[in-house]
């Protein structure tokens, strides 16, 4: 297959972000869209993630992005005309507090979320126990619960966007690596890959953990770094847990997938880099934490453990932006561990930006220039 040598836009990255951007651009009528992926689709964070969908955030921006994305996921199956199953289960997120500070922060979070129309409730111990009866009540002090949160299947959801985009005429190249971006007079001219060069006036950086490197190719300094996050899956058992259970102080998230396996992870602070190792330390710590918080789940056998890259931004909120220094260069990165759930909005906002349309949401808090010479006052703390 010879590669086409011209396009209107080249999207770098075949994860959920790249697919959602391609779909939105094509839906708006753009032609000659190319997506380039160095491995297979979902090879990055997308295929490695927990695919949890939550609206319970501590910053307004994350709350709004998540809320609007949930609204999309609720009708995604039909809108994308997908013949598979994206497995959207809305059985809520139960976020438990184990310290007094957390309990107080949760009051603030719930207030913010309710103001934005997110139906979160603050629960006492007893009410939390009604939702997940085997929670360790000796350590849980209170909880918040949002019934419309949930989780998805990351593979089929990405596939749904991919198939819908393909139907609209998007061209895809997998196992093709972008090695350079040609910029002349501060304007994007072409994308160079190991299989050929594509002339294009617009490049979208949706390269996940490698977004900084793609930025460098276009002369754009993006203040993000990548970090290994580990996760594991157990043997499947009968369905027993509806909601995702998470705790920031205990550093754990844990859900049961529709086919019965439990998926759980934690957010240990690792040195910046591209390693995606699995470690025995993670296995040890994960086992201890889950046994403490959700004792019966400690009995399950682990089937597999793996790692993936979080792409961290300075305020733990995404960067959905153009670049002042290079015309035609756009980016969707720095998702800081929650880019899967935001993909519908990522796709919408970036397509509006590229096509010069009125944005569906104010963009100041998403743009790259928000970090210029300013202290970060609006840091998202609700991250595992």
């Amino acid at each position, binding site marked *: 297959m010879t590669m086409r040598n011209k396009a209107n836009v080249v999207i770098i990255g075949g994860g959920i972000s790249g697919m959602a951007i391609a779909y939105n651009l094509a839906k708006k009528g753009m032609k000659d869209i190319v997506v380039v992926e160095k491995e297979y689709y979902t090879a990055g964070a997308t295929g490695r993630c927990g695919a949890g969908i939550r609206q319970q955030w501590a910053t307004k921006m994350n709350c709004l992005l998540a809320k609007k994305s949930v609204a999309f996921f609720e009708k995604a199956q039909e809108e994308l005309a997908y013949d598979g199953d994206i497995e959207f289960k809305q059985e809520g997120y139960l976020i438990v507090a184990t310290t007094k500070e957390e309990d107080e922060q949760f009051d603030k979070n719930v207030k913010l979320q309710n103001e934005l129309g997110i139906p979160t409730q603050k629960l006492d111990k007893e009410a939390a126990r009604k939702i997940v009866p085997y929670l360790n009540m000796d350590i849980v002090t209170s909880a918040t619960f949002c019934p419309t949160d949930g989780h998805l299947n990351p593979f089929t959801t990405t596939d749904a966007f991919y198939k819908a985009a393909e139907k609209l005429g998007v061209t895809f190249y997998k196992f093709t690596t972008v090695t350079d971006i040609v910029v002349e007079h501060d304007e994007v001219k072409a994308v160079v890959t190991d299989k050929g060069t594509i002339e294009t006036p617009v490049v979208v950086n949706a390269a996940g953990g490698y977004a900084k490197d793609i930025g460098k190719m276009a002369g754009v300094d993006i203040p993000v770094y990548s970090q290994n996050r580990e996760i594991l899956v157990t043997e499947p058992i009968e369905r027993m847990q509806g909601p995702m259970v998470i705790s920031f102080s205990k550093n754990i998230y844990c859900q049961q997938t529709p086919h019965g396996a439990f998926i759980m992870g934690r957010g240990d602070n690792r040195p910046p880099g591209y390693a995606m*190792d*699995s*470690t*025995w330390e993670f*296995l040890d710590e994960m086992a201890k934490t889950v046994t403490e918080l959700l004792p019966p789940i400690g009995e399950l056998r682990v089937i597999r*453990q793996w790692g993936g890259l979080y792409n961290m931004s300075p305020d733990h909120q995404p960067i959905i932006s153009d670049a002042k220094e290079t015309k035609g260069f756009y980016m969707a990165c720095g998702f800081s561990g929650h880019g899967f759930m935001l993909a519908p909005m990522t796709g919408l906002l970036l397509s509006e930006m590229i096509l010069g349309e009125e944005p569906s949401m104010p963009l100041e808090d998403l743009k790259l220039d928000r970090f210029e010479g300013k202290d970060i006052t609006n840091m998202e703390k609700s991250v595992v």
Partner: protein
Amino acid sequence: MKNKEAVIIGAGPAGLKAAKQLLEAGAHVTIIDRNKKLGGQLVKQTHKFFGSEKQYASFRGIDILEILVQGLKPFEDRLEILNETSVVGLYKDKVVACVKHDNFFKIKAKSIIMATGASEKHLPFENNDLPGIYAAGAVQTLMNEYGVKPGDKVLMVGSGNIGLIVSYQLLQAGVDVVALVEAAPQISGYLVHASKIKRLGVDILMQTSIKRAIGKDQVEQVEIWELDEVWQGIPGTERVLGVDTVCISVGLAPLTELLMQIGADVEYIRELGGNVPRIDFRYETSIKGVYACGDVVGIEEASSAMVEGAMAGIHAAHDLGYTVEDESRKLKVLQEELKFLRSGPHAAKVRAGYTKLEVKT
């Protein structure tokens, strides 16, 4: 976490030979195997071996095993055997995660020798999970290790040496081997074995495969059909056979998962059975201090597994700082043996595989 010097994962012929060399050189050795008995595949091999004189040709597998185990006896004070122990994780810092009788524990190794062998491949066909469908090696284990007859009427799928030998052993046990089907146009194992079972009345059907198994709670019948040159079933050629057991013998795949987890470079080489680690001529993988030998580096035979095991053991001992007596002569002799073992027409595939892997032997 316990600290250990040389940890050998897998107690088949490769692992046992590696242990012997390490022990002779003075190292402390821990052998881990998930089975109760040491010996890997040899435990169930009651047939006389083919192969070279030096590597015990015409001995039975179980006798070779006895010799290998006896060879470790003088070193018992430096040898630890963890049987019924599965290695379930292998990490960059050479931590070996183990499970024994539902207990989880970790060992930190100075050097690791991977001798995990291979697992049997399965075939996709309708009802391939009905009770009564076995891998050939499992049938061998049932009969030869536990004395259990797997069934009364068997369809054997695959004409490699394992399929041929297990067919013969089934006949010896009084089981009716109704037919042996093979997708290729020629027998893939040794002709002597094929002739033997043909003489005993087994119908050997070339360019034929299983289409589906039929039965409610277990296999009652199978449908077989003929294949064209590109191994696609030819409609209209279906035949139904009455059998209660299907024995699948369509090759082995190296057990490379642990090596992938630790991050060793692995490559898919069809001729060697699947994903195999990149090793250098010292049997060291891309990770320093982690060696691999035997079927896990390419499906071959017990004879070559023993030679490779010995070489890996010598190099590991050397790298741990031990003096191996007569090292270069020993290695030279082993090289020669391996060359001889891989010289025949039957080893053409293996030779091609190693050429692809660019292993200098």
